[in-house]
């Protein structure tokens, strides 16, 4: 009998089995109060390098986006009033699953989702639910999810989509709480003659104990198998089969992330702690695998209630994994990434822009006050510098140019718009561009934040093959996004023009509107320059990678629309076909086109640029377009009333 074949068959069968019942530690002690982790422990845990979503990242990043995906927030408030950071929550879920099961972690946007499962919903329509609340309807949830997954995404109802999400999140959470099951698993050996030889005084043993001793068991089996009769062989094989089926279940549970860097440099996939020692059960392999990291995980579980011991083991674990990773040339940016998220630069930048907005408002009351103007400029500068600093850190962490994802397009175009506003202020000195800077910065960062919250996925993901070219990413994507930023700034100028006319601000100051118009036209030219060059460069990249310069793909068409509209305004201006009002309205339409090209085409969900697809932004986009339509209508109103005024004056 070949034990290897037994192992592999069992492993393959069992890895497909869904283990619905998870053993989650000693049920006899239900310590339901959230543990208080030491600050040092949290800091250490944050820096643990793990591999997930195809890249090496700190545990804290993973925990952050996971919590965001599950709960829609980056922290969680427990029933005992504590506020947990993502890493604390993750640690609790790993080490104290029974406590974590009570945390209201699953966001449900509509309580009818819960009622559909036959459960009692909370009072609030949109609320967060705990694992234990949903657990009774697990089967119903899974069977509904199974049914809805057959329906094409476009045809699913809102509720069906949410049930699918909930099921997905629920299973993910089970993966985390079951991750360390292998450290808690106790194998009963009382009636097992093979194992009782090795553990004479015990009724059950920990898996780690078996792993330690298994090389000897293998050796012993080999030695005595010659002298065993068929009955004995059968008995020992049955006991090993039983053990292996348990082990496969535990391996399957520990799939959520991998954390052990393989010693083989060419192997890209890291391993889970149990998988790293799985060879110990293979009878054909005689070398004893390195079980030190596996043992450390076991020690962590055993000493979790002893702060000092736990800290000691965690320190050792983080150090050893970091060293192993660094030796492979991986995980070098882990600490930087931890610091990036801890620094919260974008959050601060957003609030400083807000402060700048308030100062701007005050400045408008005392427009000639130079000190106030200087403060507006300085506070805006601090905010934009923070933003640029954050973008730079992201570039360093990923080794990529500034824009590679939809999220980063928001950051970069915001920075562009604000800097461009500074430049225009310098050129025109009419206080308008500077006044707009804080508003644009605030708006951009607000949208970035909302987008990150809504998507709930890592904003520094690994890039699909076609994007893997820093050269083209730099020259094409960056140029296009500068174009977006300029388009939005032009649109902001257009709004000022319309609002000014509507509210009759400076109605006798013809120079004001003349200057404003010059600004609009100048920015549109700038937007055109970058959009055009960016679009053609995109075509040349497409030629290099897809074999055609232009394919009428939605994203390409979107960029072309911006170029064409800029060209229309420029030529209409040169041919004196439109007046200043026309240009102001034109710049507002430019904003609408930019939003369509930037977000709208991604929502269509077709085409080759599928790496930029997003969902659920329709509502925001539609509201934006409705508001812009109102502005355009007010433009017509202004035109009509000005004409009336002119006729009156002539008469």
């Amino acid at each position: 009998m070949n034990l290897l074949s037994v192992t592999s068959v069992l492993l393959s069968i069992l890895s497909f089995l869904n283990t619905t019942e998870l053993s989650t530690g000693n049920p006899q002690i239900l310590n339901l109060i959230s543990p208080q982790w030491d600050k040092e422990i949290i800091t250490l845990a944050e820096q643990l390098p793990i591999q997930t979503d195809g890249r090496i990242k700190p545990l804290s990043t993973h925990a952050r986006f996971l919590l965001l995906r599950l709960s829609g927030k980056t922290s969680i408030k427990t029933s005992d009033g504590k506020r947990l950071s993502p890493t604390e929550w993750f640690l609790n879920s790993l080490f104290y699953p029974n406590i974590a099961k009570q945390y209201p972690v699953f966001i449900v946007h509509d309580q009818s989702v819960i009622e559909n499962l036959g459960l009692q919903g909370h009072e609030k329509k949109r609320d967060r639910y705990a694992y234990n609340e949903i657990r009774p309807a697990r089967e119903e949830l899974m069977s509904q999810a199974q049914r809805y997954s057959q329906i094409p995404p476009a045809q699913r109802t809102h509720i069906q989509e949410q049930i699918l999400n909930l099921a997905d999140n629920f299973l993910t959470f089970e993966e985390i709480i079951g991750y360390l099951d292998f450290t808690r698993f106790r194998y009963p050996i009382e009636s097992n003659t093979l194992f009782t030889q090795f553990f004479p005084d015990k009724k059950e043993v920990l898996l780690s104990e078996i792993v330690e001793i298994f090389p000897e068991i293998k050796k012993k089996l080999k030695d005595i198998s010659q002298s065993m009769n068929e009955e004995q062989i059968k008995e020992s094989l049955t006991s090993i089969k039983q053990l292996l089926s348990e082990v496969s279940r535990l391996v399957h549970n520990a799939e959520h992330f991998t954390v052990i860097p393989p010693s083989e440099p060419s192997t890209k996939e890291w391993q889970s702690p149990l998988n790293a020692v799985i060879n110990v059960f293979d009878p054909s392999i005689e070398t004893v695998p390195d079980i030190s990291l596996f043992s450390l995980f076991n020690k962590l579980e055993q000493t979790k209630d002893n702060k000092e011991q736990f800290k000691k083991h965690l320190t050792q674990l983080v150090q050893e994994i970091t060293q192993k990773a660094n030796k492979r040339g991986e995980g070098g940016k882990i600490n930087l990434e931890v610091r990036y998220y801890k620094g919260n630069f974008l959050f601060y930048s957003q609030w400083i822009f807000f402060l700048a907005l308030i100062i701007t408002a005050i400045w408008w009351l005392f427009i000639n006050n130079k000190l106030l103007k200087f403060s507006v400029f300085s506070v805006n500068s601090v905010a934009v510098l923070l933003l640029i600093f954050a973008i730079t850190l992201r570039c360093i962490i990923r080794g990529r140019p500034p824009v590679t994802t939809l999220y980063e397009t928001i950051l970069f175009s915001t920075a562009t718009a604000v800097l461009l506003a500074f430049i225009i202020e310098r050129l025109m000195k009419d206080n308008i561009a500077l006044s707009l800077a804080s508003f644009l910065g605030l708006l951009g960062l607000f949208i970035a934040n909302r987008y990150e919250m809504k998507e709930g996925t890592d904003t520094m993901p690994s890039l699909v093959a076609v994007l893997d070219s820093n050269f083209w990413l730099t020259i094409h994507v960056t140029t296009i996004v500068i174009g977006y930023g300029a388009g939005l700034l032009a649109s902001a100028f257009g709004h000022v023009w319309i609002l000014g006319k509507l509210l009759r601000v400076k109605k006798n100051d013809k120079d004001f509107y003349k200057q404003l118009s010059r600004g609009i036209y100048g920015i549109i030219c700038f937007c055109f320059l970058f959009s055009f060059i960016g679009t053609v460069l995109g075509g040349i990249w497409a030629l290099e990678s897809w074999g055609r310069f232009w394919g009428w793909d939605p994203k390409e068409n979107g960029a072309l629309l911006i170029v064409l509209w800029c060209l229309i305004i420029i030529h209409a201006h040169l041919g004196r076909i439109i007046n200043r009002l026309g240009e102001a309205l034109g710049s507002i339409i430019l904003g609408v086109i930019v939003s369509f090209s930037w977000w709208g085409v991604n929502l269509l969900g077709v085409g080759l640029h599928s790496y930029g697809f997003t969902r659920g932004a329709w509502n925001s986009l539609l509201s934006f377009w409705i508001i812009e339509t109102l502005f355009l209508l007010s433009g017509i109103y202004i035109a009509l009333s000005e004409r009336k005024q002119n006729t009156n004056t002539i008469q």
Partner: protein
Amino acid sequence: MKKVLHFLGSYKLSVVILFFLMVIVFFGTLAQTEHGIYEIQKKYFESIFVLHWIGDYIPLPLPGGGLLMILLLINLFIGGVLLAPKSIKRPGMLVAHGGVILLILGGFWGEFWGDYGQISLFEGETKNTFEDSRKWEIYIWKLDNEKRNPIEEWIIPQEHFSKVHGAIRKSFYSNEFPFEITLMRFMKNAKPRFTIPGVEQGLQGVLLEPVSPEREEEQNLAGVYVEVSTKEQHHLGMLWAGEKQPWVFEIGDDLYCMGIRHKRMKLPFSVKLEKFVKEFYPRTNKPRFFASEVICTTKDGEQRTVIRMNEPLRFKGFTLYQASWGTKTDAPSEPVFSVLAVSQNPAEQVPLYSCVIISIGLLLHFSQKLIRFLKSSKGA
């Protein structure tokens, strides 16, 4: 005459053309949620006129992309070059407009004189043709009587039979083949089915019926009915792209066969796939890279190259790109084939040159403007 010239080169005309171009691009983009890109391209972007339907009830006649491009070219040439002020102080715009003309001309050139297609290769396989999976052709082979290998080939390209449907039939002759071929009822996408006995007539109980075209042009399976006749003999046949075996018939003592397949084009060299590598990001199904190691052989020798994403191979006027890969079935151990996109476009680099020219022109113009602006504001 001067008035006409001024109108053709006017800003007004530019604005109108650009506006309609925008409308066409916008509708053509939205329509992609329902139709395949190839169909959209033909209908909106390469056409003379378009009838766009807003919803299901409101028809909106519009000038097509092809027409607009020609008009734009005329407008550009007259307004941007012929009538433009050619002062040494303002060279930027002249250069930029010239660049745009080059860009559009390059586009037309590539469209009309370029060949595009793809090659699918398993490891170890060699081919010297590539296929355009959007076009069809009918092949007729004369077979040798022993080994049944083709000894004579006759190709009828789709352009010659794409209009045979309804009552329209079309006959073809070749000097090398002793019979006449009549094609009828060509279907862009067809499906065979059994006939209802006594009600319908088919060929041996089967008939071909048209089905609505697939979203992706490449997935269509064309079909056509064919009649082969000499003075003495008549054969009625049915060709369908889904059928891998050709239709075999006998004329006199000779064996012939015939079938419909994607348009094939010859390469002036042969390509052998030595090795195909693909790599995913660890524990995900996100491709990290994929690459084909190929050997191109000509009479003069061979060249070994690795083609990967963003790094095509340019060889003897052809460009080979790593496009995708696939397997014939979903079985896990199924061998993988690599798909290389092939293009032969003499104007391939024109966009690059025009981009450089236009950029230079624009930068020149805008920096001149900026300098003038700065000077004037200083003066003020």
